[in-house]
């Protein structure tokens, strides 16, 4: 029982990180119909910022807002430099566009920083543990869950209460109708990328505090998990993305604890195979989407 609670907390923590990424991917998909394979680059860039600034001795508390700002700026910049050129293009072109952006950014880090991974200082409270009702939990787990949940709630509030959030939701449902109501394409697309950048920035902080490592491909696996989570929840459904992320985290932690030790390295592989199987039975994700095809 205690062990199960422990696993649930772990899974929820991991899952909420995925949820942050999946929500960002879902937001940009909503306004552009593009799955952003370059979303992980926001984590990579954040990792190098953390690496560079801890090297000159910057405190983690100062670092956090810097990482977030970098992530938001990078997200919007990628839209302005690259993605705007494929607005309204075919799925094929948009998928390959974001795939290409991933490699260009990665090559940039290989060329101008280093091909190998670089470690950096992590805050020292990261490994402390505490006991809650007999369950031993790591402080970082609690921090991750609290921060992620607060971020998700703040994002939800932005989407519900601000005019930018309303515009994003309107455009995600029907871009033309939103334009008809006075929503500017540039504004709404860039708002979505900014918000996705904010979410990725938070995810990056949580992720980097644990790994303490910067590498050119640091964002690749988190991106893939985020995309899969968004797909599990049904692309374009924002609550679905959050749900998909948390579900993915819980399943992954369960797999780690239940599989025999020698298969530990294959957890990601097995998860991916399970997800592929899921799509055989639920091709549109776990939440059934309404069919609204008009011929």
């Amino acid at each position, binding site marked *: 029982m205690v062990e199960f609670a422990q696993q649930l907390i772990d899974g929820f923590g991991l899952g909420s990180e995925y949820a942050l990424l999946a929500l960002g991917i879902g937001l940009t998909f909503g306004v552009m119909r593009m799955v952003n394979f370059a979303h992980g680059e926001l984590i990579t860039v954040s990792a190098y910022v953390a690496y560079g600034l801890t090297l000159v001795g910057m405190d983690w508390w100062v670092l956090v807002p810097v990482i977030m700002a970098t992530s938001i700026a990078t997200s919007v910049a990628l839209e302005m430099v690259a993605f705007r050129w494929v607005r309204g293009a075919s799925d094929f072109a948009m998928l390959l566009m974001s795939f290409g952006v991933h490699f260009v950014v990665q090559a940039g880090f290989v060329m101008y920083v280093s091909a190998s991974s670089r470690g950096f200082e992590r805050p020292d409270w990261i490994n402390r543990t505490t006991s809650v009702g007999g369950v031993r939990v790591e402080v970082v787990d609690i921090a991750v869950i609290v921060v992620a949940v607060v971020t998700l709630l703040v994002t939800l509030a932005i989407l*519900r209460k601000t005019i930018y959030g309303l515009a994003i939701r309107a455009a995600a449902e029907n871009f033309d109708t939103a334009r*008809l*109501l006075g929503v500017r394409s540039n504004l709404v697309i860039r708002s979505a990328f900014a918000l996705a950048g904010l979410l990725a920035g938070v995810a990056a902080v949580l992720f980097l505090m644990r790994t303490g490592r910067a590498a050119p491909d640091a964002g690749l696996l988190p991106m893939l998990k985020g995309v899969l989570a968004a797909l599990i929840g049904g692309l374009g459904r924002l609550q679905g993305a959050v749900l998909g992320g948390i579900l993915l985290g819980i399943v992954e932690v369960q797999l780690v604890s239940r599989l025999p030790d020698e298969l530990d390295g294959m957890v990601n592989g097995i998860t991916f195979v399970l997800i592929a199987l899921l799509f055989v039975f639920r091709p549109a994700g776990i939440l059934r989407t309404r069919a609204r095809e008009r011929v």
Partner: protein
Amino acid sequence: MHRQTPGRPDTLLTLEQVEVAYGGVRAVHGASITVGAGEFVALIGPNGAGKSSLLNAIVGLHPPGGGTIRWRGSDVTGWSPQRLLRAGIALVPEHRRILTSLTTEENLLVAGITTGARSRRRLAAELMERFEALGRRRSAPAGLLSGGEAQQLAIARALMSRPALLLMDEPALGLAPSLRSHVFDLLGELAGAGTTLFVVEQDARRLLEMADTAYIIRSGDIVASGPAASLAARQDLFEAFLGNGTSWSSSPSS
């Protein structure tokens, strides 16, 4: 830069030989229409005549392939929808296009994106008072509204930008007869309050009774125009809608 259009000084919208094409289809061939301030103009014609294409061209959703659109005398051809909205042209689109994943109130608020936050909220509150059904269902997902409620929302939403000219594309489409007359009452109310209206409607007789001026469009061409009352009296109106049949009587035999 802006050239003044000849004609009445209170002319709001002028279309000069506007053409609209979708893919290879020429939906509108060269429509010239004038809408004066405070006027109620009707555009009628059968399905596929190019009515919706023309409205979408006016609001910038699908820019015209030729011709000029003037607004208060200035050339606004090719402007984006939001720029035209700020200038004072709003459209109630065909099939209403309610955003079903937003609530009633959110549908109104997002339509007020062109104005400041405070006036946006005040205007939404006013409209929800004026359209009681909307007030009652302000927090309901708009996808759950009934057909009549959704139509009220579509009209209220267009009013959020305080337009000088309101375009309407078949506002009574798909509504039960009692709700249809409710929509026509509403049109009369808006016209009475001095709103300039440019309305496309299937229910031609009813619309012609209310409008000041009317244009009849068929296969992309304006085939008749004039005071609405005189058009309504014409015998050939029904034929204009349903085709006169003569061109079919002898199909070339092989």
